[in-house]
């Protein structure tokens, strides 16, 4: 039973990490209608920049500087790339971000090579914070939780309590009206894009040492981020948070407990075929939850799209 607590913590870490990526993406999507395929690539850039900086100046400077660089890059991409493509409609925008994702992956391989980077947890955090019945919780995990929670609270504060946040929220639903009131909406778009990519950068900086820093890291995480914002509801920060945590916990628990399909089917009243090896459903019967853990979020997304197309916290159907 202690394992449940450990799994809750592990799932929380995975979920919060996912949140940092999806928070930026969901804001960008709802504001500009751009499905930014390159979002996970900015996450990768964050990790690589932080690795490079950490060699010279140490991990903490990396944590500070790398997201800034990524954010500036992101703002630049919006200002000089997306904004020009914008007038041609959504499809060119999609293709633009898709191309950008491929370009960034190639660039990263060109500069750093295809190998795993030895980007490691800083020594000061490289110890076991505490152990729950033999399962060690590394201090770095606690650190990750703190950083992501701090970012969430910060974001929530800016979006709901400050003037800038109110203008952003207004621009989310009525960009024309906000513009007519004299606000510089393109600047807001650029700012949101920059902050969104910077958040992805932060995620990269703190995830790089644990999940590995390699050219495929954007690809591995890319699709799940989209699933998260669809489940959470486009444009909803709370939705992104809930969906991220949900996915984090679902996958963690599915991997931790060997739930066998045979038991589920038997529980539903279907009896196991006599000769399993000859049954055409053999693969279905022998499935275990760890095998399909990483597919479960996609199943959840399909269900959400069927029964609640706007997502868990979405206000509009897109």
């Amino acid at each position, binding site marked *: 039973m202690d*394992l449940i607590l*450990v*799994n809750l913590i*592990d799932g929380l*870490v*995975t979920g919060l990490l996912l949140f940092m990526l999806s928070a930026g993406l969901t804001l960008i999507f709802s504001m500009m209608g751009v499905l930014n395929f390159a979002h996970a690539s900015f996450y990768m850039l964050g990790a690589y920049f932080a690795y490079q900086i950490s060699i010279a100046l140490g991990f903490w400077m990396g944590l500070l500087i790398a997201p800034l660089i990524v954010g500036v890059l992101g703002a630049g991409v919006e200002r000089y790339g997306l904004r020009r493509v914008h007038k041609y409609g959504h499809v060119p925008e999609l293709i633009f971000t898709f191309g950008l994702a491929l370009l960034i*992956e190639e660039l990263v*391989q060109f500069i750093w*090579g*295809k*190998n*795993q*980077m*030895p*980007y*490691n*947890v800083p020594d000061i955090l490289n110890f*076991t914070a505490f*152990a729950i019945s*033999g*399962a*060690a919780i*590394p201090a770095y995990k606690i650190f990750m939780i703190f950083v992501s929670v701090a970012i969430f609270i910060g974001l929530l504060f800016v979006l709901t309590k400050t003037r800038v946040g109110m203008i952003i929220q207004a621009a989310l639903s009525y960009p024309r009206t906000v513009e007519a009131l004299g606000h510089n909406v393109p600047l807001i778009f650029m700012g949101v894009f920059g902050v969104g990519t910077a958040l992805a950068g932060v995620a990269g900086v703190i995830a790089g040492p*644990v*999940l*590995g820093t*390699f*050219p*495929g890291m954007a*690809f*591995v*995480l890319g699709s*799940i981020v989209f699933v998260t914002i669809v489940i959470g509801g486009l444009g909803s920060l709370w939705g992104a948070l809930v969906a991220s945590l949900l996915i984090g916990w679902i*996958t*963690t*628990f599915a*991997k*931790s407990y*060997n739930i066998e399909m045979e038991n589920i089917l038997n529980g539903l009243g279907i009896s196991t075929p006599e000769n399993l090896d000859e049954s055409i459903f053999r693969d279905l019967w022998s499935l275990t939850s*760890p*095998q*399909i*853990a*990483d*597919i479960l979020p996609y199943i959840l997304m399909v269900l959400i799209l069927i029964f609640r197309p706007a997502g868990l916290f979405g206000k509009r159907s897109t």
Partner: protein
Amino acid sequence: MKKTTKLGAVSALSLVIGASAAFAENIKIGFIDPLSGPFASTGANGLHQLEFAADYMVNQNGGVLDGDMFEVIGFDNKTSPKESLIQLQVAIDQGIRYIVQGNGSAVALALTEAIDKHNRRNPDSRVLFLNYAAVDPALTNEKCNFWHFRFDANADMKMDAMTDVIAEDDSIKKVYVIGQDYSFGKAVADAAVSMLDEKRSDIEVVGNELHPIGKVKDFTPYSRKIVASGADAVITGNWGADMLGLGKSIIENGFDGPIYTYYGAGSGMTAAFGETGKGVIRLVSEGIVNPPPTEEASAYYDAFSAKYPEGNVDQTRISNTVGMLAEAIKKAGTADDVVAVAKALEGMEYQTIWGSKVMMRPEDHQAIQNINILNHTDEDVTYTFDSSTFGVVNEATVEMASADIATTCEMKRP
């Protein structure tokens, strides 16, 4: 008898002269492996080692036959069997007769079947399949064919050596087996369970698990189970990002026993494991670079390091593949007739630059060689990996391992 020899010699001579006058062509070798995606580093390092071996062992020594040079061409298959078949067709259309592949038994199984089919239908453009790392036993058993040669030990042979070492270690009472969910991962798991039971029935397999290949972002839940199971040792066939992710996660979450791996070194992994992996990561491998086995091997490694300062010679079998292919082409006297080259490869005994011998078993085209258990450490390492201070040092050797391992291969020869 004498007459035919003479005739043969004369015709061979005229052939040679004709060849040198007209062609001195490149012998093209197609390398089909992932050069992008999650396993790009593994594939790219393999390509570098193949290019270097071709250059250093063949081209710098004047090539084979009459100055024919080896030319290596890389094809990116993104680790997908489907993509590999497309790339295979592209390669064949470019006139390539030698296909080298290693990463992923699913890919190798698709390729060997496609090549068998192609060779039956197109006797004029037959190709050989030189497999340097795909270790699913099926490739030299029920799925074997005349065109496929495996230069690596297969999963069962490696497991045999690995379990020999585990069986001698009395401190190991519980073993956890985990791997990628595809043919190779399953083969490793099956072999581990049956061989451990055979050699040390008192060892309990406390976990036997498969995870999706190349899709797991965070291995923490798996490592939790491993630690909670109280295992003394872990066996995994993981490779690429899956190997590093799993290994790092297991160690981070408090496991300190040995992790026996098939592919837990090189490609950036050794540097990334660094201090945390010291004394934990074990590697089963055919090649030894530490301590340096021969002067020839040291010269080879030094030359490689000069060309690729960031690279490692972590797959010595690639140089064996090139060396044996060159020998076979010399013996067959032709590079165009792949049947003759294949026949020359069959049963070949080859003295490697790594100081050991490789024998290509004729009945299933499985290479028989020494298998070693190497240890990840930073002590007494002459040739480190990944420009780090860490490398793998030999710990135990099984001579000509599993030379008499049974095979179900029924090979149809042309």
